[in-house]
């Protein structure tokens, strides 16, 4: 049955985005807020706001019992978890099911399975999705050379019990891998009391490419194309775009087919994203993981496809089949998103809470701003630092970059430092304009250049 009243179990821009999407479908909304977010934009726009608890997320947004009881007590028949917080914790859909509330997302068992890296890899392998070429256990230096020759250099020797970079050695040829075996094994033994090693191909220049999927739980799955999220700092995405132009069409088609095969093989329900590493030199993609939620960067996909992904999520959670066929989904132009964070780029990206004293947002053709912020808004110290997403669309990448550059120049925020200054430097960099960057580019090139960022 279609949803009549939706509980929004999130905050910030995504809570507002979900409220707007629900209103567009004639669904009533109740937003669960912490005491710090009572005056937030989502709480004001929703039909109702329910106070979950005090500011710290552990006592409000991160307490699944509290959230589901609030949804139940306010008469909601569905719950949207947004991203982050409880969105990929299986306990939330389990509690929803116990209380007869439809969860806007996959089944809890699916969330558990995808959250377990080994199980997710096994699922991908069974569906014929390419994984990073690797070995089983390696028992000797001679075997390390044989496997390295087979996989192709450079390779990464890794400790089975590993983590944190210990017991990891990069080898560029057969001699290095033989020499590296003893070193990595000794390190692994010292660090984990287990010297067992295995090997994976090392990708020195990778792009992060991900496919937006939507399934209705019966095996019907469509994709909405891919996104390139290679501008990252410490594995956090800062700029995302669609489509990924760094990839030949043939590889793109294989990527889409692999992602759809994976989701279809497990009868995936609702929105999900299959993440891949793209090896630029070899023109190969390798599966990383599936995120079982709507993602921060979904707007770039909406801008190039014209579909509202959050509304489609709500329709599927209400029991509908997919509203679109694959052939209905046609990509048009290019979209780029910048995450605007309340962080001090000059001081090591330290997040800065506070009051927004000036907020002049860019407007114009092809510009979309997803934000919960306006002048006078308070950024509480309890949650993440993202205060908005600036998205632009153009007929091609060059037009999108030009629009983004102009939009960033007209975006004035005062009261807290933001990453707008960094984005201005990124979009003007020759490597960004030429689309030749990779996942370590921001740290190794742009930020390594020193004081290129100024307010």
């Amino acid at each position, binding site marked *: 049955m279609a949803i009549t009243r939706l509980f929004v179990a999130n905050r910030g821009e995504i809570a507002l985005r979900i409220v707007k999407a629900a209103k567009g479908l004639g669904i009533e909304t109740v937003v669960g807020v912490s*005491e710090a977010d*009572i*005056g937030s934009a989502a*709480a*004001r*726009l*929703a039909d*109702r*706001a*329910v*106070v*979950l*608890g*005090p*500011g*710290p997320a*552990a*006592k*409000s947004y991160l*307490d699944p*019992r*509290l959230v589901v*009881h*609030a949804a*139940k*007590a*306010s008469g909601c028949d569905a719950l949207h978890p947004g991203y982050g917080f409880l969105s990929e914790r299986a306990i939330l859909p389990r509690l929803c099911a116990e209380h007869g509330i439809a969860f806007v997302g996959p089944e809890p068992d699916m969330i558990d399975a995808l959250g377990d890296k080994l199980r997710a890899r096994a699922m991908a392998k069974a569906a014929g999705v390419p994984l990073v070429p690797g070995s089983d256990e390696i028992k000797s230096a001679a075997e390390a050379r044989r496997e390295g020759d087979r996989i192709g250099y450079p390779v990464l020797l890794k400790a089975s019990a590993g983590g944190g970079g210990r017991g990891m050695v990069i080898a560029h040829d057969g001699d290095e891998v033989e020499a590296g075996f003893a070193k990595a094994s000794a390190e692994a033994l010292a660090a984990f009391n287990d010297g067992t090693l295995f090997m994976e191909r090392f990708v020195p220049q990778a792009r992060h490419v991900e496919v937006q999927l939507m399934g209705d739980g019966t095996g019907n799955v469509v994709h909405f194309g891919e996104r390139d999220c290679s501008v990252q700092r410490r594995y956090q995405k800062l700029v995302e775009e669609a489509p990924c132009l760094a990839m030949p069409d043939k590889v793109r088609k294989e990527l889409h087919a692999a992602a759809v095969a994976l989701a279809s093989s497990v009868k995936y329900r609702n929105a999900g994203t299959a993440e891949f590493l793209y090896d630029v030199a070899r023109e190969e993609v390798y599966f990383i993981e599936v995120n079982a939620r709507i993602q921060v960067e979904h707007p770039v996909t909406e801008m190039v496809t014209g579909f509202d992904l959050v509304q489609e999520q709500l329709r599927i959670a209400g029991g509908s089949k997919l509203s679109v066929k694959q052939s209905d989904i046609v990509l048009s132009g290019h979209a780029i998103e910048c995450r605007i964070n*309340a962080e001090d780029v000059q001081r090591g990206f*330290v*997040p*800065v*809470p506070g009051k927004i004293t000036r907020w002049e947002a860019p407007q114009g053709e092809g510009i979309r701003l997803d934000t919960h912020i306006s002048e006078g808004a308070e950024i509480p*110290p*309890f*949650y*993440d*630092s993202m205060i908005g997403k600036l998205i632009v669309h153009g007929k091609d990448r060059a037009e999108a970059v030009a629009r983004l550059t102009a939009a960033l120049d007209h975006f004035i925020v005062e009261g807290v430092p933001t990453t707008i200054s960094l984005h201005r430097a990124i979009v003007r960099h020759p490597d960004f304009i030429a689309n030749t960057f990779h996942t370590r580019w921001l740290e190794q090139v742009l930020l390594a250049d020193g004081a290129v960022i100024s307010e």
Partner: protein
Amino acid sequence: MTNSRKISDVEQLIEEFQQSGMRELHVRADGFELYLSTNGDDAGLGVEQVVTTPAVVAPVAASAAPAAAPVSAPASAAPVAADVTIPDGSEIIRAPYLGTFYRSPKPGSPVYVDVGSEVTPETEMCLVEVMKLFTAVRAGVNGRVHQILATDGQMVQADQPLFVVVAA
């Protein structure tokens, strides 16, 4: 409904819970429900209130000022102890920025330092977290912890004194 669970089962469960290092345990079976938490003011323990107290579901009019929130939580911004004694030759260790003060690396694990702990410049004293960024605060001096000025989970201001360390 047969009451198949004996008190001794519950006692055993509580004992195992305490030894497990888990923060919370919620058991529900055959009309029996048990919720255990290591945190006395855990939000989950107030669940009954949420269900039965209509005031919690506070409607917020789109135009009007937001309805007052029921404040059920203990004040998280506890005042700094008034009786701060600063012996000669002591150092004050301060918060690097506004954030939440944590005395242990994760909930339930032992504290980094206690009153009386010997510290070196590299000793980690606490974590301060703002917007998911955790910073370990180091002692910066050799000495002994004389006083701890903030409580676990408290919101602290930038440069707020956190520890008094008597230099060695």
